[in-house]
């Protein structure tokens, strides 16, 4: 389920870009001064994305269901197997979380030599990040449906503010996903040869059911 997400998200982001490009209005700016417009023309050219809104919508609205179903399957799986306990921080973890997350970040940036503490399968920074990503995934789906059917699902749209803010959330979540992906790969790559190998076999081959993922997955 973890690996099915990769091609699905790739398709969702790619087709989403085709949709966004039809009206690329978001820019990052402060006090009316534009710092960085999403996205510069070179970005589309480099990725060789064609302006094809209809096709983008077709892929997006169809694959959205697969992404949602996969997400639901994953939620049920982690709940039934109790694996969520390894991901979400428990109450005693929350206490020292800020300290431990900072510790891990400093360690990874080579600013601090000592290893961050690990309780269970994932360390605090991992628990924090992976929980955040799962929440982001849910938010991507919810904000997506809020934009997709703002009248039929008006309660959902209302929860996220309005149509425009739901769109901004949907867009921001996507950017966050891409940033997570970059750090995720870097972290996996630098966390040791074996881990790297296990990631490479999976990454190269795109899909692997999580039930076969029995190597030490200290990612």
């Amino acid at each position, binding site marked *: 389920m973890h690996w099915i997400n990769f091609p699905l998200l790739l398709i969702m982001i790619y087709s989403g870009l085709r949709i966004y490009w039809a009206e690329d209005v978001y820019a990052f700016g402060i006090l009316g001064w534009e710092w960085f417009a999403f996205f510069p023309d070179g970005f589309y050219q480099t990725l060789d994305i064609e302006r094809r809104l*209809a096709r983008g919508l077709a892929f997006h609205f169809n694959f959205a269901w697969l992404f949602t179903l996969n997400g639901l399957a994953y939620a049920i799986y982690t709940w039934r197997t109790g694996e969520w306990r390894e991901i979400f921080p428990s109450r005693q973890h929350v206490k020292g979380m800020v300290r431990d997350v900072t510790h891990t970040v400093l360690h990874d940036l080579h600013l601090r030599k000592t290893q961050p503490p690990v309780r269970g399968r994932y360390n605090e920074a991992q628990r924090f990040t992976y929980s955040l990503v799962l929440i982001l995934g849910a938010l991507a789906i919810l904000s997506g449906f809020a934009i997709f059917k703002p009248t039929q699902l008006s309660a959902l749209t209302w929860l996220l503010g309005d149509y425009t803010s739901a769109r901004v959330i949907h867009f921001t979540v996507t950017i966050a996903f891409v940033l997570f992906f970059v750090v995720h790969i870097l972290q996996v790559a630098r966390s040791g040869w074996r881990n790297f190998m296990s990631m490479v076999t999976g990454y190269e081959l795109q899909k692997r059911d999580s039930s076969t993922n029995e190597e030490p997955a200290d990612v």
Partner: protein
Amino acid sequence: MSERPELTEDEYRGRTRRSLIVGGVASFAGFRGWRWIQDQPEVDNIPQVLRDGHELNERIWSGLFRDDHQARTFDRSSASILRVNGRVGIRNEIDLDAWRLEVVGPDGDPLGTHTLDDIKALPQYEMTIEHKCIEGWAQITNWGGPRFADFMALYEDQLPDDISHVYLETPDGGYYVSVDIDTMRHDQTLLAHQNLGFPISDRNGAPLRLATPLKYGIKQIKRIGRIQFLTEHGGDYWGERGYDWYAGL
């Protein structure tokens, strides 16, 4: 980095090999699936399977459609004249005095002709809604005119019971849409002749256009010249060009 359960070298190799095979088969299947979509014959400009997906989505959302699901309305003070986007079907000049609305039955029989005064004689409504374009932009605007439901009531006894869609086209036939009957009968579907209290401008579809917050802008045809009641869907300009026929919100 951290302590974790270690496997023996053999176990590790075995598992790596196994996941390599599983992953290889899975990614090959994924690649084949992707090619399979791309190689599908196209239906109205998108691969068949994606068109089927659109139709499945249509069945889900039209099944969930309820007359009392109202699109959000806004205060009139937040509304502005709608931005102009697209001129298909309204490029030529129009003589507003000579304009007439033709109404046609399912088999093509003419049922009636209307002037703008006929339209203004029906009960008038006003709504301030968020107009949504399929390209992604949205704008709060205000429409005035009769409900399509009231207009349709004029023809109720001349129409069969199984009307499922309404087909509307511009006088020159250059732009045309098919809209499902549930949406057309909804309270928030107007035959609009006013935008923010002013007569609709030529570029925004004078003298009469469709206005409904339940559909994207592509369905809200400007400058309606002809209306046909149908028992199945008719043509649809953007539907035929790769977009979703339903385009509901």
